[in-house]
């Protein structure tokens, strides 16, 4: 691990101030970086894939940014809230079960006790060609160097939203729920606060080194998941190589507003299969006004993967992703809502 200096920030303003004034480049390559749970940052620093020169420890922001509140606007989540707290929250489990399930099925109890919600959405790719600096080509790690994955082992790589420069899959689960439920992100910058639709946070693969729209020194302080008639009938289905403590090969985050069997609203996020947190707008549109049956669910899944681009080892993800979405839709339909 390369040497770095370390300081603690007492509050969000001090944190953004300490990281202010850096040149506008990829936030992930900035010299001054924030650290909270550390489960991604230290992992990548040991691999020499992350090389901060200074770490701003923001764990003390927990005094202000560790909260779970539900009001008429929706669900308010603090950036420093630990994953395990969201997994266990009784109200979230009742009113936003999808969100709680993405936490219960993610990582391990130890990681969930460490990692924060904002850190979770900013977790980096699990592509081995990115993580391991021994591979010469990675546009995410070394812009312009090429992509070792495209001609490599692609079994865990993405089939939706990929480009010629990068085909890695966004690994997280929580983000699929946030994108499906159209959450907003609260961001503190050195010059003030702004909010952003979560769907606009992560960028596409045109410049893989730019993973989000966050600039160096910008800090996520919270999330708002808007209330809606679909939040209670919501569920997360995650398919993986082993039954626990594993990233998704394919996942589906689904929220439905039904009148009988008729679909009034459908919200769908897809994980393990896409370059970034992925909202399946085409699948949602195909369901509106339809009766939800296995047939209409399969047509929605067909629409979701119509634009898939596969490589040698990951073509199976199209069929697996479709089946995962069908299962999630039918499971959500079968839920008994109080």
């Amino acid at each position: 691990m390369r040497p770095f200096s370390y300081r603690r920030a007492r509050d969000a303003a001090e944190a953004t101030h300490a990281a202010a004034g850096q040149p506008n480049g990829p936030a992930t390559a900035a010299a001054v970086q924030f650290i909270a749970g550390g489960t991604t940052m230290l992992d990548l620093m040991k691999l020499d894939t992350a090389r901060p020169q200074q770490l701003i420890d923001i764990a003390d922001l927990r005094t202000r940014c560790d909260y779970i509140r539900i009001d008429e606007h929706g669900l308010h989540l603090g950036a420093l809230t630990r994953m395990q707290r969201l997994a266990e929250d009784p109200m979230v489990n009742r009113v936003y079960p999808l969100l709680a399930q993405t936490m219960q099925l993610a990582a391990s109890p130890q990681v969930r006790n460490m990692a924060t919600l904002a850190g979770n959405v900013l977790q980096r790719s699990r592509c081995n060609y990115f993580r391991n600096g021994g591979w010469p080509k990675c546009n995410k790690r070394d812009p312009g160097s090429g992509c070792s994955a495209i001609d490599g082992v692609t079994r865990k790589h993405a089939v939706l939203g990929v480009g010629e420069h990068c085909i890695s899959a966004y690994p997280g689960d929580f983000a699929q729920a946030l994108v499906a439920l159209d959450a907003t992100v609260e961001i503190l910058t050195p010059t003030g606060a702004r909010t952003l639709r979560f769907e606009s946070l992560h960028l596409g693969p045109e410049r893989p080194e730019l993973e989000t729209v966050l600039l160096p020194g910008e800090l996520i302080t919270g999330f708002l998941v808007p209330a809606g008639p679909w939040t209670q009938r919501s569920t997360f289905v995650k398919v993986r190589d082993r039954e626990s403590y594993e990233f998704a090969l394919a996942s589906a985050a689904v929220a439905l507003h039904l009148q009988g069997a008729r679909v009034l609203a459908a919200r769908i996020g897809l994980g393990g299969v896409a370059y970034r947190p992925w909202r399946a707008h085409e699948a949602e549109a195909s369901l509106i006004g339809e009766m939800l049956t296995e047939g209409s669910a399969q047509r929605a899944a067909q629409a979701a993967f119509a634009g898939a681009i596969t490589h040698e080892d990951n073509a199976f993800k199209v069929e697996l992703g479709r089946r995962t979405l069908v299962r999630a839709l039918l499971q959500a339909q079968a839920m008994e809502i109080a």
Partner: protein
Amino acid sequence: MRMWFHKIAAMQSDDRVNRRRFLLSAGAAGVVAPVFSAMASSAPATAPPAVAGATELQVVLTVNGQTRSLSLDSRTTLLDGLRDHLRLTGSKKGCDHGQCGACTVLVGGRRVLACLTLAVAVREPVTTIEGLARPDGTLHPMQQAFIDEDAFQCGFCTPGQIMSAVACVHEGYAANEAQIREYMSGNLCRCAAYPHIVAAIQAAKSQMPPASSAA
């Protein structure tokens, strides 16, 4: 069968102590020192060599009820701080990337991965495997259950398994076998002693003291 196992375990335990004593004394006697001779006068025998740009920080850690002040390189993980600086070598370095759980310790009563925690970032008391037994040497019920149920073969993952198991019971996720398996999934056992680990947790859960006295 059980007697035989205990004899083997005792022999292995003796071997381990001897090997560790040898390594520690070899380091102190200067087998390693010439390589770092330039730093030898300024650095304590156990500290890694100084690196240009490295930051030394004063770190106060409370481990198993004892508060210690250490001067550590900012890069020192809690795991390295425990093992290399406090000589608490029970917590194991398996993968060093948060994938195996061998380094699991309790911080503020929560189970965390010591390999992905910076020592300087620790704000709450730490409990390691060395802090579970009573001062008179009586093992924690979970430690005793792991022995009684033969819940290990090589033993390398065992301290992490036991720390995680203690937390698993305190969290209330040890109701049945399926739940134990799910909530112990962060601890890998390459010998695949999983059925016996589950049995040990089932056996220990009703005998454990309340959370406050263990954390």
